[in-house]
């Protein structure tokens, strides 16, 4: 059943009225060379019944696994009330409501969300969210270029320990706007950028991007890096995991004056892993740059009767007013995910979030100790860490992963895909959802698999004739 309300007769009538013969003619102005001829790799449509059958089959394959994978998306316990409340009819709309007169509840929720994010990050202002972590970095880079008016180079330095998929997305979005991203390599021992490796005379740098905890889970020397950037006239873009901020120094307090723009993925705050999305992006900044911040900002005000109310604010630079000159034209707000995050943070409170972060760190510490005792497995970096650790395997790591997968264990993430020098490495994460027994199950399995794979130790040696 087609969901297009117009009949053939109506379409014909409309086309005749505007003087064209077919619907295709409406797209005439798009040059032929730019038009897709068809979608060859997309199969034909299927009926609802067939699709339902296919999806049930696929869902059945998705076993309930013991997951130690992280690398930007993290399994946390989500209290049942979070999505019970989020999916109530009053909230169940994925888009920002514009009408203050009809949407006070949602606007107040977004205002509370912004207050929570500024409190977590130590920044002055937060927007009402962006699309996801990767695009939030791209938006932060564009924003830094607008905000740092003293810098003319549009040159962004990025630590190589920033999530490589975020770097890739940021590069895709910014490279055709004259912006260049240059990587600063990390120290192989610490898995962090050594402040002494930064150039003494870097030239005109628009911004420095620092992720904390970095992609490997290690804690960067954020104070020295932030001060270095500011000394050379660059803004500091901080990429953060919001859960970690319950334990770590907020970006607003990095170095002498703090980071300038903060971004990251909000997924750890109440969004399930869900095969990669939907998640939401966070963005905060210091007040000086609020007019360069993309996206919606909710403000608190008083109405004509003097009553408190909430409304969209600072929208003079948004796309419905500024068109192509808007601060962003992809400032999609992930309203429903933000609703879940706000309820999640409200239920946990600062102490609850602190407990989640501490338990995640402690579990990872336990995993680190236990797994490093397995023969042929070594800890890759010697830095302080939050809730992820990179291990090097003497035996082929892909085979270890496959064997664990057969036992229902998602062992971690292969970092060699993005860092060739770490091809034998696996990155693991243990959040508060893991028990000591889970960790023992993983470590025992790895120990058994590794010794089986280690050909030097096979008990049955081929006999010599």
């Amino acid at each position, binding site marked *: 059943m087609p969901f297009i309300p117009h009949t053939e007769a109506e379409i014909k009538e409309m086309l005749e009225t505007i003087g064209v013969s077919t619907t295709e003619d409406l797209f005439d102005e798009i040059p032929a060379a730019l038009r897709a001829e068809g979608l060859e790799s997309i199969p034909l449509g299927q009926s609802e019944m067939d699709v339902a059958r296919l999806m049930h089959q696929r869902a059945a394959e998705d076993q309930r696994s013991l997951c130690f994978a992280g690398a930007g998306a993290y399994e946390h316990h989500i209290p049942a009330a979070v999505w019970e409340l989020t999916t109530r009819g009053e909230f169940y709309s994925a888009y920002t409501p514009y009408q203050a007169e009809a949407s006070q509840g949602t606007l107040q929720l977004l205002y509370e969300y912004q207050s929570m994010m500024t409190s977590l990050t130590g920044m002055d202002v937060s927007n009402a969210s962006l699309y996801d972590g990767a695009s939030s970095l791209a938006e932060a880079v564009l924003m830094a270029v607008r905000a740092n008016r003293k810098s003319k180079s549009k040159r962004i330095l990025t630590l190589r320990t920033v999530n490589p998929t975020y770097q890739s997305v940021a590069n895709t979005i910014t490279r055709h706007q004259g912006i260049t991203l240059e990587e600063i390599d990390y120290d192989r021992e610490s898995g962090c950028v050594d402040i002494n490796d930064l150039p003494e005379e870097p030239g005109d740098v628009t911004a420095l991007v620092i992720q904390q905890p970095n992609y490997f889970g290690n804690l960067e020397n954020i104070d020295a890096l932030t001060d270095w950037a500011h000394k050379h006239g660059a803004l500091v873009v901080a990429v953060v995991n919001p859960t970690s901020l319950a334990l770590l120094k907020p970006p607003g307090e990095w170095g002498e004056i703090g980071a300038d723009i903060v971004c990251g993925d909000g997924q750890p705050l109440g969004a399930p892993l869900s095969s990669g999305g939907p998640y939401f992006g966070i963005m905060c900044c210091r007040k000086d740059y609020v*007019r360069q911040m993309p996206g919606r900002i909710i403000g608190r005000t008083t109405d004509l009767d003097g009553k408190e109310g909430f409304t969209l604010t600072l929208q*003079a*630079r948004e796309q419905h*007013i*500024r068109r192509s*000159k808007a601060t962003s034209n992809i400032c999609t707000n992930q309203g429903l995910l933000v609703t879940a995050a706000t309820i999640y943070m409200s239920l946990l409170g600062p102490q609850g979030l602190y407990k989640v972060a501490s338990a995640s760190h402690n579990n990872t510490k336990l995993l680190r100790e236990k797994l490093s005792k397995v023969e042929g497995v070594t800890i890759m970096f010697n830095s302080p860490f939050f809730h992820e650790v990179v291990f090097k395997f003497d035996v082929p790591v892909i085979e270890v992963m496959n064997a664990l997968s057969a036992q229902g264990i998602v062992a971690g993430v292969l970092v060699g895909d993005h860092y060739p020098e770490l091809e034998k490495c696996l990155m693991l994460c243990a959040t508060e959802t893991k028990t000591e027994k889970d960790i023992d199950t993983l470590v025992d399995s790895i120990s058994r698999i590794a010794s089986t794979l280690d050909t030097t130790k096979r008990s049955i040696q081929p006999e010599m004739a």
Partner: protein
Amino acid sequence: MSNVPTELRYTKSHEWVRREDDGTVTIGITEHAQELLGDLVFVEAPEAGSTYAVGDDCAVVESVKAASDVYSPLTGDIIEANEALADTPEVINTDPYGEGWIFKMKLADEGELDSLLDATAYAEQIAAED
């Protein structure tokens, strides 16, 4: 009818230009422009030392309704921006040709001044817009 002082020069995009005795020029937006924008809440003035060509956007004036670009009427270097606007952008509404100036320029070619509109021509333009 908005005030259009006869001693100033104008652009079609509603900037005014005053030639000072020392050869520099002072630039702002016209009374008519501030009327169109409404109450100003923020001004992003250009950085001293930067260089602009005719038609480059070099400043932004933001009202409660919209943020609009201010275009450089002439080619030259910015020698000073009106710092007072950071705290009191509303002086553009109250005194657009005086306290509400936005920036001062040192021109690359004074001959460019002749390409600007005089008060009569600008007044005709805004009358035609209404």
